């Protein structure tokens, strides 16, 4: 059975603005990564580890699936 590769998208940019216009640097510090990593995540150029994904969701006090979504390659769920 072929594995559907897909990619991970996220709501980080929107959530930052919903959280008192939190800056990328502030989120980076809270999540323990560099600002460049937050920039890459927002541009969907980097898929985070499960640990980082949970840390970012924790910063926003949201469940993981409210922050990160898996988009299958063909567009189907």
């Amino acid at each position, binding site marked *: 059975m072929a594995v559907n590769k897909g990619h991970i998208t996220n709501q980080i940019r929107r959530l930052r603005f919903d959280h008192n216009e939190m800056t990328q640097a502030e989120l980076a510090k809270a999540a*323990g*990564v*560099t600002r*460049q*990593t937050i920039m*890459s995540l927002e*541009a*969907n*150029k*980097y898929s*985070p*580890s499960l*640990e*980082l994904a949970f840390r970012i969701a924790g910063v926003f006090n949201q469940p993981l699936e409210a922050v990160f979504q898996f988009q299958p390659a063909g567009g189907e769920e």
Partner: protein
Amino acid sequence: MEFLRHFSNREWNVLATLALDLAIAVLYFSKLASVPDGLAAPSAALAGIIIQITIVAVIGAALLFGLINWRRGDQEPADERDKFIAARGNSIGYGVLIGVIILFIGHLVLSALGFESELLPYSQVTPLVSAHALLLCLLIASTAKHLSQLVMYRRGI
């Protein structure tokens, strides 16, 4: 050169390492070309060049990385993305290193079997030539590693 403004400290350090490696290699091999006996046998001139280049490389690295740290502040600790990019770069560099060494050994084997090439005839492959060929292999692998890291930082992974 607009994109250089968006480079992080880590990207500047990778770029500086790449530029320094290539500059030192060009300097070394251009000086090597002026040695009368070439790489036929060890000589005082060759030893002098190696010492000279080592000193230039150490001073160059100190100045270049000192300048980057002075202009841009200390480098942030590496996070998971930096480590992932470093690991992928090392993996690519290792693959390239194995590839070029196999090419070099293949060339030696074919030459020994009588399939001589004009580029590097078997009779001219002295131990010093072999050492420099391996040095060139390391340089190619290091260039591939740093270039791939820069591409991954810029284009995403």
